[in-house]
């Protein structure tokens, strides 16, 4: 039985020749054919695949978010503007995965240009939450989260600007890791907020996240913002049994749904049982990070989307959807003459305060605990009612995103409606190994209360 096997387990099966990469690929393709029509996780399926057993990921099939340029494989960022765009080049992340002989099942749906937290802004229809088809999977990496949660892929790649990996991981009930900004190359990732964007894995377990991070992380000479710092052996790091101090900040427990709050509190007890210490900390209220994030991200969006003129590729600017236009308009406003100092420059100053704030707290504690999202998955259509709602929903991810620090979201239970709840640990710069280590200890202790397994078994 292959159902629910993790990347590490599948790799063992391939290595021991119990299954061949093409059989594995076909297995997932069949599942995709069966379930994708109602889930809409994938936009484009891959046909041109080269199977090789060698390499860290030899023969492992993965789902790739549709904002990673893949040579010869349509890449749309879920926007009509790029509906026929076939990249003549490969993103660094997908190139590194291919180099280890991973195979791509296809490109997954997302909010158009990654603008959103539900996949509903996709020009190719929303992805459904595998736990409840009347709900959204979260976003913007909702397609990958859905595919992994319903086992239409054993693992996948998403990207975050502020919450776009962790929030869909929470709502779809999988593991989502957002690395430090600069740890994973952005080259070939269709830019959203250039000073924030960060690729990362969505997986069924922490080991898989460590495995993928080990492949995609590391310096890239094509991305001037990628860190030259050498990468750690993330899989080895899981073998340690370290004791950490977890920071508790009141602001990060404010406005949480009671089931979410209970689940996070229960997680804190688990960590205490594992020998972790806790400490109260004070951080700048996330309400400022929402503003900083809104200003900087919109400014960068308005700039990054200005290349789409329909001349060299894609359709022209009339093809932009509502959300993209709204963001371009605000970004254009905050950068325009006479407003720059009041908005953009002010935001960059407050960003400094946010960074200093985290740096100070991380001298006291190893992690700050919380949730990537105050509530569980919303019904389709809820987001549209409030244009600014997504930013409020992502308020616990925005401070960390502005600072560029890493974080992980783990499933920690189900709410009263049977929907997954996410808990997150945020750590200091380049502390991915410690974050993964702590998450792994938690996983060993709880097995996520069976959440991930239950999700998959909904799609036997």
């Amino acid at each position, binding site marked *: 039985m292959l159902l629910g096997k993790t990347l590490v387990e599948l790799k063992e099966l391939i290595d021991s020749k119990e299954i061949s990469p093409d059989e594995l690929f076909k297995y997932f393709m069949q599942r995709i054919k069966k379930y994708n029509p109602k889930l809409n996780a994938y936009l484009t399926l891959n046909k041109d695949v080269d199977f090789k057993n060698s390499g860290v990921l030899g023969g492992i099939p993965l789902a790739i978010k549709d*904002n*990673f*340029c893949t040579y010869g494989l349509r*890449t749309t*960022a879920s926007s009509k503007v*790029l509906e026929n*765009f076939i*990249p*003549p*080049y490969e*993103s660094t992340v997908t190139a590194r995965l291919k180099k280890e002989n991973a195979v791509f099942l296809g490109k997954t749906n997302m909010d158009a240009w990654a603008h959103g937290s539900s996949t509903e802004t996709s020009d190719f229809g929303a992805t459904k939450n595998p736990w409840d088809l009347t709900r959204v999977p979260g976003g913007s990496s909702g397609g990958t989260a859905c595919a992994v949660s319903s086992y239409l892929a054993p693992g996948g790649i998403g990207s975050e600007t502020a919450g776009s990996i962790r929030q869909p991981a929470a709502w779809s009930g999988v593991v989502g890791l957002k690395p430090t900004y600069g740890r994973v190359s*952005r*080259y*070939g*990732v*269709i*830019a959203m907020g*250039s*000073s924030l964007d960060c690729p990362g894995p969505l997986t069924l377990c922490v080991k898989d996240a460590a495995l993928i991070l080990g492949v995609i992380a590391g310096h890239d*000479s*094509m*991305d*001037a*913002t990628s860190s030259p710092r050498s990468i750690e052996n993330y899989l080895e790091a899981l073998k340690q049994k370290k004791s950490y101090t977890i920071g508790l900040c009141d602001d990060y427990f404010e406005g949480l749904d009671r089931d979410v709050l209970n689940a996070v509190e229960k997680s804190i007890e688990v960590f205490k049982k594992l020998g972790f210490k806790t400490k109260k900390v004070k951080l700048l209220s996330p309400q400022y990070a929402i503003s900083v994030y809104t200003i900087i991200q919109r*400014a*960068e969006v*308005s*700039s990054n*989307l*200005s*290349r*789409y*003129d329909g*001349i*060299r*590729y894609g359709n022209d600017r009339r093809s932009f959807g509502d959300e993209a236009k709204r963001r371009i308009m605000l970004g*254009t406003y905050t*950068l*325009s*003459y006479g407003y*720059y100092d009041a908005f*953009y420059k002010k935001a*960059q100053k407050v960003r400094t305060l946010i960074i200093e704030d985290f740096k100070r707290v991380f001298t006291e504690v190893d992690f700050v605990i919380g949730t990537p999202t105050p509530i569980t998955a919303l019904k389709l259509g809820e987001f549209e009612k409030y244009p600014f709602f997504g930013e409020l929903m992502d308020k616990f991810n925005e401070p960390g995103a502005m600072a560029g620090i890493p974080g992980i979201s783990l499933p920690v239970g189900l709410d009263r409606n049977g929907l997954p709840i996410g808990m997150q640990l945020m750590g200091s710069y380049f502390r991915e190994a410690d974050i993964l280590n702590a998450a792994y200890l938690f996983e060993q202790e709880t097995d996520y209360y069976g959440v991930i397994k239950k999700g998959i078994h909904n799609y036997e």
Partner: protein
Amino acid sequence: MNKYIPVIGLEIHVELKTKSKMFCQCRADYFAKKPNTQTCPVCLGLPGALPVPNKKAIEWVQKIGAALDCKLRPHSKFDRKHYNYPDLAKGYQISQYDEPFAVNGRVTVCNPRNKTKKSFGITRVHMEEDTAKLTHRGSGTYVNFNRSGVPLVEIVTEPDFHNADDVKMFLEELQVIIRYLDVSDADMEKGSMRMEPNISLQKITNDRSQITKKSELPNYKVEVKNINSFRFVKQAIEYEIKRQTEILEKGKTPVQETRGWDDKKNKTYSQRSKEEAQDYRYFPEPDIPPFIFEENYLDEVGVSLPELPQEKIDRYIADYKVRESDAFVLTRSRKLAEYFEKVVSISKKPQQVANLIINKKISIDLTPEKFCQKVEALLSPKVTDRKMLSETVKKTIVDNPKVVSDYKAGKKNVLMFLVGQVMKAMKGRADANLVRQQLLENIL
């Protein structure tokens, strides 16, 4: 009598001759290459592509800054400048806004004709990228991205110019300096040097010093683009001075706008008025970390500069006692100046060597050593054929009885005529002193 003083500032763009483009590894020598053969995701502005700056280009822009006597900033960064045009791949140009690599420079230019020196302020020198090349044919415009992303340096001057001649003189000097640095061809025809003067007219009042005060500059400015020769710059400025004077004479103010230069009709024409002026929405380029330079490094940039033309002129005059006008000519190219210096270091006759080079008496294609040999042959005291001289002197005296008698009557200066006649007959192959001596002996 003119009632107005022209106030002119310049923006000059210079393409660097680096091997690679500014933000990608594509080749930068786009001239005469097949369209779109030198592109990559970065310079084509494909989704997801990211810029990485070319180290040498930054070293070179700092070199230019230092050569123009600028202060090199210890902190610098790139910014995005937004506008929409088909030649701009990303919808923004990576440029520099408030932290250019070099600021506050000065260039002193000597005018060899009237032996005056003038000095002009440099506001800033910054680094940016060139755009794609547009060609207009029939009903279409065609875009070639080979030029997209080629390193481009922008030099901005203070509005220190008051006539077209000074502008031309300055630009010629700037071109020479840039070529000395060996960082650009600075070839206007090929487009590797481009200039955009901005011109306005200031009414003359009693206090002439006021034109130097920025706050009292005219309240409009006309920028002229598309000029590809020094001659056209001069013509465009002169045309604008005339055009704006006529408008001001009617009691109106010229429109602030960008105008183009039509070199067939010899006039400027309106391209874009201020109403449509762009709001470039500058912000720091998030894809490129900042630049921070150590003081030692920046000092070294200045120290490692070659000797510049103006310094050479001063040295030639002071050390070689060469005429200023000759020093100017000799320093117009670094190659020529260095050749001159090599020859002088061997022959030790600077002014004569200067004359021989400038008058093209000896080819500078020769090695400096060969050149010196020829110099020696031309300048060394003449070996005189004594017998031939004696005969020639006698014949000259016989042929010019009137002159000889004039001399004897006391008109001493006619001797020079006789010397000249002898020299002519000897075809110059005689020592003039000896000729003089022989003539005197034979006359008496």
